[in-house]
């Protein structure tokens, strides 16, 4: 378990780095957010309110280190400040309202995309040298399509053109949010198109990685041995080749997840999906800096936790990491 403990330490550090980055960004970026805010308000904010707003930010004249400890103390109390665009709603409340939508949407579509992509990658590797090789350029193209454009096209064809799906929102506005079958059905129905966008936008990457890795692994001696053992092709492929080829996909999860999260944020914007990405977009548009930072922090922490889960899965899948347990 030393491997996992080491990883745990690393992620704890990364989480701390994310906290600190979040603290430093508004203080180190060129331009004073408060001045940007006042300039952006077109005279609606009285320049004399400047100090009050700066205090809201925690941007006081105290030394940086004192500000930092105030910041950490606030965080410990889950106090992320107050939203400026929805004054005086606390940032944490806005985030906790948006969080479940993103967690479910991005979580489910990432899992689907990973399973679909790796499965297809194994299949393409197994059938390499045939028609399947011609699928590769098409997948490369698919992988390069920007999420938001894919979302636009899907909205146009499936929502506007064919009318199969709603093109905005997370549920039917006439319904009252509750834990009932019709409401949950409406949620699933509204999530289908954004989820489809994220899956189509991200699965090709998994396919390409898994295919290349499986092709490489198929050349290993232990795969030859499995073949020589007279095991059925299915067993050789899944028990030996794919079982080993999936390991780099899992360690590469961090990289891919970051891209998926970024892409799904854009997807949320297009679908007006009330998740973290859409909220972040609105916060940036409204120059609601406390909300922006709170969101950045929460998204980073969520990705860190997802990576930790991926690493735990890795320990489960690769006995070599369990050495010295």
């Amino acid at each position, binding site marked *: 378990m030393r491997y996992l403990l080491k990883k745990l330490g690393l992620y704890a550090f990364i989480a701390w780095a994310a906290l600190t980055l979040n603290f430093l960004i508004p203080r180190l970026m060129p331009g004073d957010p408060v001045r940007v805010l006042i300039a952006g308000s077109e005279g609606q904010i009285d320049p004399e309110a400047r100090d009050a707003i700066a205090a809201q930010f925690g941007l006081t004249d105290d030394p940086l280190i004192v500000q930092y400890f105030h910041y950490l103390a606030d965080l410990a109390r889950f106090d992320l400040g107050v939203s400026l665009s929805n004054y005086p709603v606390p940032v944490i409340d806005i985030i906790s309202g948006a969080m479940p939508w993103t967690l479910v949407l991005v979580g489910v579509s990432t899992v689907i995309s990973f399973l679909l992509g790796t499965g297809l990658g194994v299949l393409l590797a197994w059938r390499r*040298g045939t028609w399947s090789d011609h699928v590769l350029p098409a997948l490369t*193209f698919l992988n*390069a399509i920007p999420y938001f454009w894919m979302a636009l096209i899907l909205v146009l064809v499936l929502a*506007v053109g064919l009318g199969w799906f709603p093109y905005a929102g997370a549920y039917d506005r006439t319904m009252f949010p509750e834990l009932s079958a019709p409401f949950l059905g409406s949620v699933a129905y509204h999530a289908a198109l954004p989820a489809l966008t994220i899956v189509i936008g991200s699965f090709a990457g998994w396919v390409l990685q898994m295919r290349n890795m499986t092709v490489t692994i198929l050349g290993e001696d232990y795969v030859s041995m499995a073949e020589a053992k*007279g095991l059925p092709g299915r067993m050789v492929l899944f028990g030996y080749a794919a079982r080993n080829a999936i390991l780099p996909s899992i360690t590469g999860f*961090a990289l891919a997840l*970051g891209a998926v999260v970024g892409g799904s944020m854009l997807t949320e914007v*297009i679908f007006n999906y009330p998740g973290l990405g859409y909220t972040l977009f609105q916060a940036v548009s409204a120059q609601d800096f406390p909300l922006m930072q709170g969101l*950045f922090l929460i998204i980073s922490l969520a990705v860190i936790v997802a990576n930790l889960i991926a690493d735990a899965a890795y320990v489960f899948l690769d006995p070599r990491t369990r050495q010295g347990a």
Partner: protein
Amino acid sequence: MSISSMIPRSGKVRAGLVIVAVFVVFAVFGPMVAQHDPNATSFDMLEPPSSDHWLGTTQTGQDVFAQFMTGARTSLLVGLLAGIVSQVVSVVIGLIGGYLRGAADDLLYILTAVFLVIPGMPLLIVLTGYLPSRGLFAIAIVIAITSWAGSARVIRAQTLSLRNREFVEAARATGENRMRIMFFEVLPNMLPLVASGFLFSVIGGILSEAGLAFLGLGSLTTTSWGSMLYFAQNSQALLAGAWWWYVPPGLAIAVIGAGLALINFGIDEFSNPRLRTGSRVRRAAPTSRAAGGDATAASAQAAGTRTADAEPGGAAGAVEPDDADAGEETAPAAPALRGSEMEGSPIIEVDGLQVDYPTAFGDVHAVRDVSLTLRRGEILGLAGESGSGKSTLTNAITRLLRDPARVVGGEITYRDSEGRGTDLLHLEDRELRALRWNEIAVVFQSAMNALNPVTSIHAQFDDVIRVHRPGLSPARRTELATEHLERVGIDANRLEAFPHELSGGMKQRVAIAIALVLEPDVIFMDEPTTALDLLVQREVLDQIVRLREQYGFAIVFTTHDLALLLEISDTVAVMRHGRLVEYGPARETYVDPQHPYTRALLSSLADLGSLA
């Protein structure tokens, strides 16, 4: 293989280069060709493509074609800039960390991990949210800051593996300074990685810029593909059906991204030959050692002459260039084939076998006209230097030849204890699977790689028993596995161990035990002891000989170590350039070698004192 021989052959790379070239032309010349100012509004609002507006107009009457071309310039510029900056950062950080090791590496590794895990797009959005003015350059730098980490990690790993290579050691020994070694010795050896990282950074840069601009967070004064989509989206171009407005920019991003990724395919396939696709050389030969060796064998062979040999009928399709110059072999010697003296019924008969590897330079004949007979209980030692074709021969018999190797002539027959023959080369998959391990088992060259690293020894015994003896209960299967493990001198409590928990010698013995578990008639052992140190080698050999006495299976034992073969084999076959040059009882071959090559091998052994 050189770069020049590879790049033009890959259709994917060619397509990628063409795509990228087209977009570069767009970016450079497009804005000059456009007849309109991309920002000039007009009263031709939302018009479809026409001769005046090649790609129609926007809501405010701007020319989409002019915008598209300007957008190409913006996107490529940002992509290129972000790609260069992020690649420079990742090379410097990866190289320094990987080369210097120690505290610097730890720090840089953690720094890389931080940027790798913190999601780029939100960070990008937050950073640009704070930017007071969003110029192209600032956007590109911010993109680079959020995207260097993945590539840095790859470069660090490669540096770690290169830093102890001979050429780096040599440079260190001559007292070159560290910076010079890093950037002039190590860096040039990972250019494919750097190039591939650069391509992905450019793609990432283009995508990120488009995403930001689409959110209205890009450079507000510059037209880019992303900003086109932003305005198209905001003025309901989709609902208005103005496809000419929103289709070109999105498609362009996808196409250029695919183009860059296609070029990267070429780089990947260059550094990892197994990934190659296409009709001719589908994958590199089973292992590079065999392919490379066979290629040299064949070219040497081409310089030799045709030997007067039996079995002319076996030569189907293998045309020999016998008009070549005189090579190193001055006097062609006839092969000395005395055959096996063993009693007992034949178990494997190879007749006139020919195996070719098609390559870009013509067919390489890896096995030429080989005939031999293995009898029950016999130990046949197959000797020959690397590339002599011995592994290709055994792989042909066990049907483990990998693409592109092809059996182009000859027959291989397996005979069961009643003498019924089975044509091994034309066996259906299902029948072949039934025969495998039941009758023909294999012990691979290096047990380090022959055992599945992620499953336990138990699982690797169990799958083969379960498949071939479906009636056995799990308890009985475990019993069988334990019994065979103990038979090779490994304690039963190691059954649940994973391969990485065993020493090299133990792994090799486990591989032998797995080979024995179904009590096959014949076991192929491909240099089973080469990877072991001498003492362990001896133990394993003794074990093999003892087990043979116990079970009575036949062995085909491949090695380049002739001394070892003569000691344990009943019969010896010596291969050279894909042919059998000597084939006969071990004792006679030792006392009275017929072929000059065998004589040369034996006398070199005598010089070394191996047979003393």
